[in-house]
């Protein structure tokens, strides 16, 4: 009797805590939404009041004044291309390493060389990178894509190698005996088996690349036509700091795509991020 009473009390405390937490999480996002739909005068009167109507002038303003549309297109271009390359190149490399590192020195050497990347903070290559890519004329979208793929390698290969090791060899061996080449065996037998890890790597990198700020800031900050969304927001907010309703409209515009993807693929995103954090 006493036990169940204290159980109820604890449950009640949990619900109250969770509800307060919910407000803390959602209120800033809610303020973002309402501010984006308010006119500057409305916001100046009261920051917390609800918008009186669906005022779309801020969104129009973002598209008219900044290069929002091209930044959006650039972000999509960079994310899609980088991630496509990542999920083609990394599993191939991880598979080859996992299956050969015990027999061949070459594979264990490249494995440990790739692992170095986990230990190196981005700041270490940040400074020479700008100069080095600049000399190759790669301070551009192409350069950004190359760097995202390169910097995804350490964690990706590490995750992939460990995953492939847990997949039994029998099926591939059978495929080879049936006359498959290594490449078709990989395509038809191995890839379907490593799908869960592919999903993890996909999620981790989509979120990282879509939200990345440091690398675009270094490589593209001189050329507004190449801005990605985070860089656009950063510069836009700095430029129109007085007209902050515009800024909030730009925040909302950049959050909506991620939130839509999150709503659709929540399970994969959570499990992807969980596995990535545990093993990196």
């Amino acid at each position, binding site marked *: 009797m006493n036990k169940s009473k*204290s159980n109820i009390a*604890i*449950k009640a405390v*949990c619900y109250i805590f*969770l509800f307060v*937490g*919910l407000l803390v*999480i959602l209120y*800033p996002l809610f*303020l973002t939404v309402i501010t984006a739909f308010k006119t500057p005068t409305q916001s100046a009167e009261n*920051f917390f009041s609800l918008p009186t109507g669906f005022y779309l002038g801020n969104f129009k303003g973002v598209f008219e004044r900044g290069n929002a549309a091209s930044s959006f297109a650039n972000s999509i271009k960079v994310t899609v291309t980088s991630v496509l390359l990542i999920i083609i*190149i990394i599993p191939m*490399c991880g*598979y*080859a390493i996992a299956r050969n590192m015990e027999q061949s020195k070459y594979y264990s050497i*490249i494995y440990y060389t*790739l*692992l170095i990347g*986990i*230990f*190196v*903070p981005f*700041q270490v290559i*940040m*400074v020479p990178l*700008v*100069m*080095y890519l600049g000399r190759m004329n790669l301070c551009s979208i192409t350069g950004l894509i190359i760097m995202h*793929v390169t*910097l995804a*390698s350490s964690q990706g290969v590490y995750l992939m190698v460990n995953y492939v090791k847990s997949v039994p060899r029998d099926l591939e061996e059978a495929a080879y*005996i*049936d*006359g498959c*080449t*290594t490449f078709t065996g*990989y395509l038809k037998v191995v890839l379907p088996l490593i799908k869960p890890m592919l999903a993890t790597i996909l999620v981790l990198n989509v*979120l990282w690349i*879509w*939200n990345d*700020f440091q690398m675009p*800031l*270094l490589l593209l900050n001189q050329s507004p036509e190449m801005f990605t969304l*985070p860089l656009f*927001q*950063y510069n836009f*907010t700095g430029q129109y700091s007085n007209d*902050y309703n515009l*800024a*909030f409209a730009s*925040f909302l515009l*950049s959050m909506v795509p*991620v939130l839509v*993807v999150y709503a659709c693929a929540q399970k994969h995103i959570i499990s992807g*991020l*969980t596995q990535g*954090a*545990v*093993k*990196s």
Partner: protein
Amino acid sequence: MKRTKGFSGSHGGNKERKRTMFLFTLPMMVLYIVFFLVTMFIGLFYSFTDWNGISKSYNMVGIKNYLAVLSDSRFRKALLFNIKYTVAIVIGVTLVALICALALNSVKRFSTFFRSVYFVPAVLSMITVGLIWNELFLRAIPQFGASIGNKSLSSSILANPKLAVVGILIVNLWQGRAQPMVLFLAGLQSIPKDLQEAATMDGAGRWARFCHITMPYLLPTINIVVITQTKAGLTIFDYIKVMTNGGPAQATEAVGLLIYRHAVAEGKFSRSIAESMVLFVIVAIVAALSLKASGKSQVGE
């Protein structure tokens, strides 16, 4: 690539396999060597020069840059900032994430809904989150302060040298606790139910069960969270760049930002690389611990 048919004998198949496997590693390795390793070695080389990033000539100066970095009070101040910040964020994130996970784990109704909302900050960009809070600190909180007649809330805490770091910590905590929280949830769900029930039957109280059953199961996860947060704290850049840009009066100048400024704005190219190498050594030690810990936790599973 020439196809070698399976029936052409195991020798031919082996050769084909070896070649394909090598080709599989090639694209990644070329990128990694050309764009990562070479960049790092170029950096290492210039850290022993006095190059300013622009001029045509430079001299080799040995370890002078490193000595200058270690005796530079600005660098030491930045490093101290990072260490303090890291301690605060590690403790804050671990505690808040753990409490959220425990609360989520002990409710049944609406639990899916709570979980999805509680995870949302993890998918947003640090830049968007930082910029939103910037505006909230600047506009919403002063208005709120005025309405309750509190004058100390009248200006953004980010403009106050003593409080700016608190503002950054709040934002980092708001967003950064989301991912560790799902790690803790996964850890909590790995605890066998019958173990809890048996302990309850034996008369173990809530606190005793928490200490003797829950905590041992969560330790590997706590380990991982502490280490990843340490790494994140030591290399923090995004929030600071957009929220305070190191100010006011260099009060929030973290090492990552100092390196960026020295290189991009102040023409101390080789010096900034030496700074990054010092940071590298510190982070490498932490990352080595991280690999060890994640190895252990996998064994634990």
